[in-house]
């Protein structure tokens, strides 16, 4: 998993490549923490994400709750079919905003 901050806070955009699983999701979460702390809104570009485990879902849930609580917005962009299937099955599509 690699990532790149393509737009700085407050309108933070992070582009992620690879798998969001048990190993990579906590890493992404802790490394993004400083940027997220300054962000008002977040767009997570997951065009390059081909797999999402429950740890990845948990990261999405954490982000969703956080931005909702702070009054900002959290959106996903570029969801691939495999990931879309997981989001659909787990009901995450009901609570997440998708661009």
């Amino acid at each position: 998993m690699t990532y790149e901050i393509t737009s700085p806070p407050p309108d933070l955009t992070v582009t992620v490549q690879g798998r969001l699983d048990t190993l990579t999701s906590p890493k992404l979460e802790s490394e993004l923490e400083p940027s997220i702390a300054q962000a008002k809104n977040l767009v997570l570009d997951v065009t390059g994400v081909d797999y999402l485990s429950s740890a990845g879902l948990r990261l999405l849930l954490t982000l969703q709750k956080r931005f909702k609580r702070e009054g900002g917005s959290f959106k996903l962009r570029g969801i691939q079919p495999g990931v879309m299937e997981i989001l659909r099955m787990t009901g995450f599509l009901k609570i997440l905003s998708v661009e």
Partner: protein
Amino acid sequence: MRRSFQLWLFVSVALAFAALFYLTYYLQTKEAFGSAEAMIELRMDDAKKQIAINENNLKAVLDICNASMANDVKTVAYILSCAPAFATNAYKLEELRRVMGYDEVHIINRHALIENSAIDPVLGNAENYIGFNLKLHAQSEPFVHGIGKQDFVLVQPPLPRGMDRKLFQYGGASRLDDEGIVQLGISVSFLEKAMENNSLATLSPGLRIGVGGEILIVRGEKIVGAARVDLEGRTLTSVGLDPELISKLHQGEGSFSAEIDGVDFFGLYVQSGDLTLLGVMPTYEVTRKRNSIAIQLVISALVLMLVVFLSVSKLVQVIVIDGIDRINASLGRITAGHLDEKVTENRSKEFEELSGGINTTVEALKGAIAAEKTRLNSELEFARAVQISALPQIHDDPRFEIFASMEAAKEVGGDFYDFFIVDESHLAFLIADVSGKGIPAAMFMMNAKAQLKSNILNNPQKPLDEVIYEVNNSICEGNDACMFVTVFVGVLDLRSGLMNYVNAGHNAPIIRRANGDASWLPVENGFVIGGMDSVDYIQESVTLSPGDGILLYTDGVTEAMNRQLALYGDDRLISLMDGPIMRSAPTDCILGELKSDVSAFADGAPQSDDITMLFLHYLG
């Protein structure tokens, strides 16, 4: 470390170089001025001696001249007493003048008046002098005092006279024939040459010091002798010396530095009679040798410094820094987790001890980690035992069969299944997958499992979606870790075969009809439990006929990976379930066949997630 050492080394070497340079420069300067002083002193002594010799020579010449003239004038006085005619007769006197070889002869009477004269015709007319009163002229007045005295003789020093200022000397003696004075005069141009030879100006060119140094001979404020023509005749102020220095130069002796016509000079001064001698040398000449030594020193010391710096630097690099780098590399591998790494740096006793110390520490650490791992393993095993004991036992009931299996990827998994009799005619069954693994997931799982069971048991009449709604809110409370669980739960009416079910974010089950046809159970994808409170769920239902079965599973099945990181997938699962193997498989072998197919797919790739499955066979 290498950088800071090199900096330190560089500074030390540079300081040593600077100290050496300063010391040499200081000693060379002292030496240069010392030898310049000695040289100037020597030349000043020469100059003093030469001046003394010249003065003595001139004095001797003048003494001879004076004695000769005194003798001649007394001779003329004697001749006049023997032959008085010479005194009165102009022709006789002229004869006497020529014989004596003088330019002028004057006979002066007792009234100080010239009464007879003889003069070299080239110089003038004798008649013009007759009657000249000696008292009226400063030069001649001293002779008046001899009138009337016996044995009076006066020889005047040579004095410049007339338009051309030629030296002329007068001498006089008391007359023997009568009261009065006889006077001789002569042009002493030969003396001029002698005095010129004695002049200090002619002395100086011979008194050079080195190349640009010389002796300046000073009388009062004025330079009367100098090797350089442009200095001669000028005053000390005009060449640039300040008054304070000038007054110092006129007292005793010593050394001084000053600018003369804009050039720095070093010099000595000494008094010699009414003269002051200044021996001066241009400072650049004094220090030239020192400067060339300094340049040579700087070049050779720089080369030496570079050699010392490079060789010490290299030596330390080889002896110390390389060893430390190697140890650091080993430490890097150790901290990266390779605890089997051995530090083998042993080029010196100290390194050997250090390596040994690190190795011992790592060994001790490994021991501690192993002990901790053993403790953790035993705890995990215990947790596993608790988890397994929480799973329901297989019921012996004529109305249904249940088969279940759980294989955790780690000792403690996040998956679980459950089934229990709600009342005499209802069977509840569920499968769940907690996000995460390990102890936290297991604890979350135990809570979720208990909540689900108690809520379903306590509300047998409530629609299942409402029960799940309550369970979700209850689990969400205080769930700060944002853990969640996907659940598929069904309640089967064992009399009618009607099965109500709610899917909370879990994989869709497969319904296997009695004839072997298998298909996806249509499910509404509700949100996971524990993720967010006040989420609505939807209850659905399907009717099972006797012989039909439901397969529940977790994503450990569909997301099992092979070596190429491909997923097992829904398609392979439904094909297998609907395929010939499963159609002919007895119900108690269905889970076994499924497990074998997943293992065959994985082809030895390690299991990354819990694999849990449950097959409910409705018998009617």
